[in-house]
């Protein structure tokens, strides 16, 4: 039970970014499918979008680590 809060923090915090990253990849893949010549540029912007979505999960991870270790 002691570790439940940190587990919940990262577990619930990863849901949103997971969906978000999925949506980013969905959009990027559709765009590449329509316009394969622009694949390079789309990929760069996709990675940027993924990093921003991922950083939300990282905030949750920081909270989980703080709950666990501080």
């Amino acid at each position, binding site marked *: 039970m002691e570790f439940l809060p940190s587990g919940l923090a990262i577990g619930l915090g990863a849901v949103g970014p997971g969906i978000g990253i999925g949506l980013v990849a969905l959009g990027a893949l559709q765009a590449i499918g329509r316009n394969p010549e622009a694949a390079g540029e789309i990929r760069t912007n996709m*990675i*940027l979008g993924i*990093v*921003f979505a991922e*950083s939300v999960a*990282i*905030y949750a*991870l*920081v909270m989980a*680590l*703080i709950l666990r*270790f*501080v």
Partner: protein
Amino acid sequence: MQSSGSALRRFFNRRNTSYIVGVLILIIGGRILFPVPLPTIQLPAEKIPGLTILGFPVTNTLIATLLADLTLLAIALAVRLRLQLIPTGFQNLVEWFLETFYNLAEEIAGERVKQFFPLFMTILLFLLVANWWELIPGVDSIGIIEHPHEEGIQSYEIAEVGPLAILTPQVSDHGYILVPFVRAAATDLNLPLALALIVTVYVQFTGFRTLGLRYLRKFFNFSTPIMAFVGVLELVSEFARIISFTFRLFGNIFAGQVLLAVISFLVPFLIALPFYGLELFVGFMQAFVFAILALVFLTMATTAHDEHSEHAH
């Protein structure tokens, strides 16, 4: 069906099979023969015992920061002292790197690229080197062995190897923990926070210098109630930026460090390798995102509010 069956049989010929079995034995044997203690994971940077500068304790992340600085200085000097008109080898690589990012910055900042590029590139290069220092063997694993100062930290028995000592996986009540000499610079909350503050202050300063008092119109605009509310949101987001800058960098690098430690605790050999590749990518990506965001905020602050529609991409 038949072709895939024969392809499988061709793949599992005697040589490939022996490789696979060897790797599996190495992984499983390594897990049993060379168990690794789980490193102490703690948020604040550890102080190196007995080492102070002007009364301030020296932390291991400070040493990592200085190492990153020295690395950058060494690279700069190595290129500068043998500067050639027609670049070859290493100079070529450095020039290609700078040029790529200069063009990228020009796409974002337009004609102000000359003004903003030094800060952008400094952040990018410094964070890149500082983040990649984390991956060098010996960082996080060579240090001083001492008793933990606080209660509740798991400590281990040590084994003497000549003049040195290593931690063994045996947990004990009055054991030792490892205080590494070098720990990735961005795993200390102070470094991302300092960088975020530098960027934020410089953004406000540049905004005022370029637009004068017009810059304030972004925050205090009482022409319509909606604009007044948007101004409050802008004001809050200026401060929220500091927090998101700080925790994005800190969280990613700290999580990377913990990930590498836990993976090599679970499986000592080979399995950690793909994660090193991942951390190479994350280290570059975080440096890049930090620098790009600083550049975007600078560009936004120097663009007057009513010019937004012209400058929109």
